[in-house]
């Protein structure tokens, strides 16, 4: 039965997430935007303390998207700082064996720990098949060499905690995509070092780093999925790509939080000014402002429902690659536009750093970029609806 009602338990968790966002995230939001590489220690400790309540746990269902949205309504950069297996964890879940899930994620219970995923390289971003980082087998070990950039939460995972990073590397360059595998590298592994910390447009509370692998040795068992390379099949690559089916709608949910923060702020201001947004009025009779607001609201809703559907499908164990990409493409672009329009509408209040709106506009933009740019998600969507391979639609 088509239903949009949350269970009482889900509602409670979402409300709690909203309270946290208001009480814990918002008050320090501006500070950590302006003090880019400072660690929000109290925030981290608090989030760690309440981890058992499940408010910030990742989860792969529609309710998880709604919790994520609330927290990112508070602050999207701080959200990424919450100690969690994060994208690395998602990759282990998506491509790892049961034994690997237990082995790698057990350590996340002792003290604040983070997981990260390293995919992008200086020479390739969305084109993950062009990865040049190598993994060479040497007896019972893999030896990794290469450079990864734009690793979200890489520093906290590898330097501030005993976390891990999931690294994508090729075991056989001549095999192309079939040779791409993912590997778990625990913090403290010799031969791995965190370098440059990026200075970013937004989500400044979160760290984004470069990681260099220099004859970095990891146990053979740290490869996720099947170590065999069969040139005729790309199952391993597709397994790794399956991570995106889970993470893209979560990024979409993060986007929604930022978009709604902007939308709520604009609507609240209008209300205080005595300006009412009318619904059910013919469009030609709406003011330009009402048109803008209702368009923003409709786009937000469209993105939200696509996101909920993608995660609901995941919870039903239905293939959701198409729907995940649709949600991510729509949400990333929608909130980018919503926040930019909000700045326009609010005029001097929108552009000033006295208020958070300008920050939300900067924060929003990343959602149209990481975990696959809007264009890559359009490409995935297009290939799926056309039933085209990557060779048929480049």
């Amino acid at each position, binding site marked *: *039965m*088509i*239903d*949009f*009602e*949350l*269970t009482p338990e889900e509602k409670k968790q979402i409300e709690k997430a909203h309270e946290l966002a208001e009480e814990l995230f918002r008050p320090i939001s501006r500070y950590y935007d302006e003090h880019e590489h400072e660690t929000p220690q109290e925030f981290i400790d608090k989030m760690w303390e309440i981890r058992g309540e499940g408010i910030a746990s990742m989860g792969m*269902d*529609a*309710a998880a998207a709604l919790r994520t949205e609330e927290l990112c309504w508070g602050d999207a950069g701080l959200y990424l700082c919450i100690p969690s297996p994060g994208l690395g964890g998602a990759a282990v879940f998506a491509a790892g064996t049961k034994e690997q899930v237990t082995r790698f994620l057990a350590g996340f219970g002792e003290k604040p720990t983070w997981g990260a995923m390293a995919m992008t390289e200086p020479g390739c971003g969305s084109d993950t098949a062009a990865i040049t980082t190598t993994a060479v087998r040497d007896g019972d070990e893999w030896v990794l060499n290469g450079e990864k950039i734009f690793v979200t939460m890489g520093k906290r995972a590898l330097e501030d905690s005993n976390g891990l990073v999931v690294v994508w590397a090729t075991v056989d360059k001549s095999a192309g995509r079939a040779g791409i595998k993912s590997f778990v590298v625990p913090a403290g592994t010799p031969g791995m070092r965190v370098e440059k910390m990026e200075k970013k447009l937004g989500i400044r509370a979160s760290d984004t780093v470069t990681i260099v692998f220099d004859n970095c040795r990891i146990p053979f068992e740290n490869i996720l999925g099947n170590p065999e390379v069969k040139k005729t099949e790309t199952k391993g690559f597709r397994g790794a790509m399956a991570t995106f089916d889970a993470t893209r709608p979560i990024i979409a949910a993060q986007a929604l939080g930022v978009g709604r923060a902007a939308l709520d702020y604009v609507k609240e201001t209008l209300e205080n000014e005595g300006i009412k947004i009318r*619904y*059910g*009025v*013919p*469009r*030609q*009779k709406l003011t330009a402002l009402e048109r803008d607001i*209702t*368009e923003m*609201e*409709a*786009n937000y*809703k*469209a*993105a939200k*429902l*696509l996101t*909920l*559907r993608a995660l*609901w*499908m995941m919870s*039903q164990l239905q293939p959701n690659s198409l*729907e995940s990409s*649709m949600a991510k*493409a*729509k949400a990333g672009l929608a909130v980018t536009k919503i926040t930019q329009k909000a700045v326009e509408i609010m005029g001097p209040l929108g552009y000033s750093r006295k208020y958070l709106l300008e920050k939300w506009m900067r924060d929003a933009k990343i959602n149209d970029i990481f975990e696959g740019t809007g264009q890559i998600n*359009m*490409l995935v*969507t*297009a*290939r799926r*609806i*056309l039933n*085209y391979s990557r060779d*048929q*639609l*480049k």
Partner: protein
Amino acid sequence: MISFSPTEEQQMIVAMVKQFASDEMRKIYRECDESGDIPDSVIDTAWKMGLVSSSIPEDYGGPDGEHSAITGSLIGEELAWGDLSMAMHILCPSLFAYPVLEMGTDIQRKKYLPLVCDEKYKATTAALIEPRFGFDPNSLSTIARLDGNEYVLNGEKCYVPLAAEADLLLVYAEENSSRQGFIIEKGTKGLEVGEREKNMGIKALATYELSLKNCRVPKENRLGGEKGCDFNRIMNCSRVALSAMAVGVAKAAFEYSRDYAKERVAFGEPVASRQAIAFMLAEMAIEIDATRLMVWEAAWKLDRKEEATKEASLVKAYADDMVLMVTDRGVQILGGHGYVREHPVELWLRNGRGFVTFDGMAIV
């Protein structure tokens, strides 16, 4: 519990309607658009599926199914995918029946609902839109005034589907600054059905102008009697129905242009293998899905009898834009071929453009 899965029963209804749409409607829609006429046989076949009557309780002669806006939206989308004119014609009796079912007095239900449960299709309709600039359903120029035991109605209406053949009309009018419905029987003095209208699209659907000149109806013909009707809810049910139909029309244009783009070769490759075309199609697919989900959410609220003005009007505005974007691109992707009437996309563009105008011409 959040779910995006229609019930098994709804899935069966959708499958049945889809079959009908592709077997019957899609075979003749061009002919109907050119001739302005829909064969009775198609309407009768559709009627036998009981798409309208299935919502009517046993007490009033129906099969006692549940009236659901979600089910109505699913049906609306599939029928509109087949053809919008035929969809509106087939569902036209619901314009009268559903408001009576939901808001009519017991006497009104007993008197009128059995008529839509007849085995043969019988047209009943509703009149809302008025032929003037700046038409706003929230302030009608058609006026109803109580005079003794009768209401006196005056005003002009347009886009009234099947007005010439309908036995019963539900006419919406302003009464003491509220919007109310009035049941008018065919042949009532002062009710004049004008010439059949000529429109850009939905050409196979017969629509008419109406004029009401001191048209008197008994007091008890006011929809809902003393209590009146919840006009806002009727509008919301209409917004959701039209949005669902817009999704259907858009889906038709999307599928056709997608298939065309895969076949049409330019520079040695199917045009679909170029991002310029592929990305257009991807965006069409995303927006169609998003609109459908918004339709479901608004319909879900209606089924729970919750206030849904915000959801219904947001989705309607979104669907109006979406269907125009999608059907226009349908034409664009076919290029010159899209502009000629050998292909259906120009028809969908003409029909799609109308949604912003079609207030009250469909209902769930």
